[in-house]
């Protein structure tokens, strides 16, 4: 297989993938700082380390395709096109947030972007993705539902119920399991009888594959190919992207259950410097340009924080809105 970057995407697209990963990382690291300062409260689950999955996958989808995710979803929303300023404001609980500052970190939503939500309940989004796919098929629309979830979700009943339905009714769902190997502190092999998650789909006759979730190009290729297949056949497909979160489950989790050695192995596979190295080696860009991208992302994130800080709190009466029509 042709492995050079330019054989996969044109230069500006490659650089966009890089920029989106950097943006995601900078945004999340800024969130960590704002959490420490007390500006972001509650539970904050950061995506640092997993960027290649959201970025590569989103690039492999159409903008009409639905995206659903779990509670580690800031990057998913931003990569899909959500304004970082309004996402940050949401995390702060400010009125300018993309959900009016009422939902915070785990409940981002933007139907304008076909971003159909972050979900705080593990596995809660899977049947909803199947329903969206059913509706798309019923309405003869050319769109699929891409449903992201973690390794922890695969032992919920909803996982099995959803896979069965998607295959039984031949629905265009692309299941993307982000396997970061830990459900909080419990490793996959301590929670799943068959730890090789993509193999579990055989019970539902859904084809599946495993992809290196630390390689944005590999994720892009796999998702693009899978999405085309789902569109052509109107059948579900399943991708397991193996990845790693560089931080704890949430900011409240010191992640003492993982060894420093293991952490180092994965840090060495950080998807951002890995892509940078290839971009430079293949003479697509130079280090100076990549520095410039980092600088721009930092500026955007700083502006997002400033916007969130300066935004007003919601009015008290806002709690009564959006319950009924």
């Amino acid at each position, binding site marked *: 297989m042709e492995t050079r970057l330019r054989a996969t995407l044109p230069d500006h697209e490659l650089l966009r993938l890089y920029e989106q990963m950097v943006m995601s990382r900078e945004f999340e690291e800024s969130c960590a700082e704002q959490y420490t300062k007390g500006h972001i*409260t*509650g*539970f904050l689950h950061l995506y640092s380390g997993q960027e290649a999955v959201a970025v590569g996958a989103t690039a492999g989808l159409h903008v009409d395709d639905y995206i659903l995710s779990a509670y580690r979803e800031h990057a998913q929303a931003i990569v899909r096109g959500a304004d970082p300023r309004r996402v940050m404001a949401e995390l*702060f*609980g400010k009125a300018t947030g993309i959900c009016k*500052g*009422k*939902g*915070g970190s*785990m*409940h981002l939503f933007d139907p304008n972007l076909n971003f159909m939500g972050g979900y*705080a*309940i*593990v*596995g809660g989004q899977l049947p909803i993705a199947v329903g969206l796919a059913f509706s798309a098929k019923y309405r003869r629309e050319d769109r699929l539902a891409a449903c992201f979830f973690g390794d*922890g*979700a695969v*032992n*919920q*009943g*909803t996982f099995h119920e959803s896979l069965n339905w998607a295959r039984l009714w031949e629905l265009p769902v692309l299941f993307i399991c982000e396997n970061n190997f830990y*459900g*909080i*502190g*419990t490793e996959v092999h*301590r*929670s*799943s009888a068959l730890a090789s998650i993509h193999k579990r789909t055989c019970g539902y006759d859904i084809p599946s594959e495993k992809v290196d979730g630390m390689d944005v190009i590999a994720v892009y290729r796999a998702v693009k190919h899978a999405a085309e297949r789902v569109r052509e056949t109107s059948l579900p497909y399943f991708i397991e992207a193996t990845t790693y979160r560089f931080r704890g489950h949430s900011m*409240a989790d010191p992640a003492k*259950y993982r060894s420093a050695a293991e952490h180092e192995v994965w840090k060495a596979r950080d998807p951002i410097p890995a892509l940078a190295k290839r971009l430079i080696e293949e003479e697509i860009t130079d280090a100076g340009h990549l520095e410039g991208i980092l600088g721009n992302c930092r500026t955007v994130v700083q502006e997002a924080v400033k916007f969130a800080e300066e935004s007003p*709190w*919601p009015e*008290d009466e*806002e*709690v*009564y809105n959006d*319950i009924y029509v």
Partner: protein
Amino acid sequence: MARINMVQALNMALGSEMKRDDRVVILGEDVGRDGGVFRVTEGFQEQFGSERVIDTPISESAIVGMAIGMAAYGLLPVAEIQFLGFSYAAFDQLFVHAARLRSRSRSRYNCPMVVRTPYGGGIKAPELHEESSEAFFCHMPGIKVVVPSGPYTAKGLLLAAIRDPDPVLFLEPTRLYRLIKEEVPDGEYTIPLGKARVVREGGDLTVIAWGSMLERVMKAVERYNAEVIDLLTLNPFDAVAVLASVKKTGRVVIVHEAPRTCGFGAEIAATVAEQGIMDLRAPILRVTAPDVPVPLSKLFDYYIPSIEQITAAIDEVLRY
């Protein structure tokens, strides 16, 4: 006797009961190696082994269902659900099976299990991590719903819950986990289920609360001659204690952090209206959250009953 917080009191109760009775097993997400998200079961897996302190997959329905099976056949499971909002995935097992095993088997089986879970607000996360949906579970005949309001009641009630022959949903107020310390005896003691306690005597009105609201109520009543009842068990609740107090005071304010409609306050109010109306001198007032999902951060302060709202309700009933 030591001054400890609620996490320590719960840990003490579970540890002593694990030592006392090898039928007690603990299961839940990250309760073992990680010691639970709020560290209530810290150190237990090392002490008692992974056969008795079980890290489960993220499968709330199976956690509760497994516990039912264990309980039906000789064990005393204490299951942990990470947050009350996560228990909705296990609603079927709780409502359809745990609550009805005794009835369905005509008492040939019983279900001596405890489901422990943090509930309520105070950690500044919205909705599913801050739910106060205790009333759902009070609507399940066959399940006891128990809510401690501090370290002392937490230990005594948890020991009683584990020893109770029927299923108990044990709601731990998240906000209080580390907020207050109390003197807690080192030795075993139980607080009977189904019994309220009068935490403050008074003659002008009765304020009824439970869980985390009790702490707020105690601050609100400082300058009133108010009797305060801590229900401790919501189902079955201690109507005798409530009615006795109403007979004395003639005025009732009920405070809960759950939404208003069909909140447990409605059940108490209905009971007082049915059985104590001749003792009433004022309308029964409820101070509750509004009928909306728990919002994030700043709006939470508006959402949760405030001291001002409680004193306003007290002033209102005292006008009669």
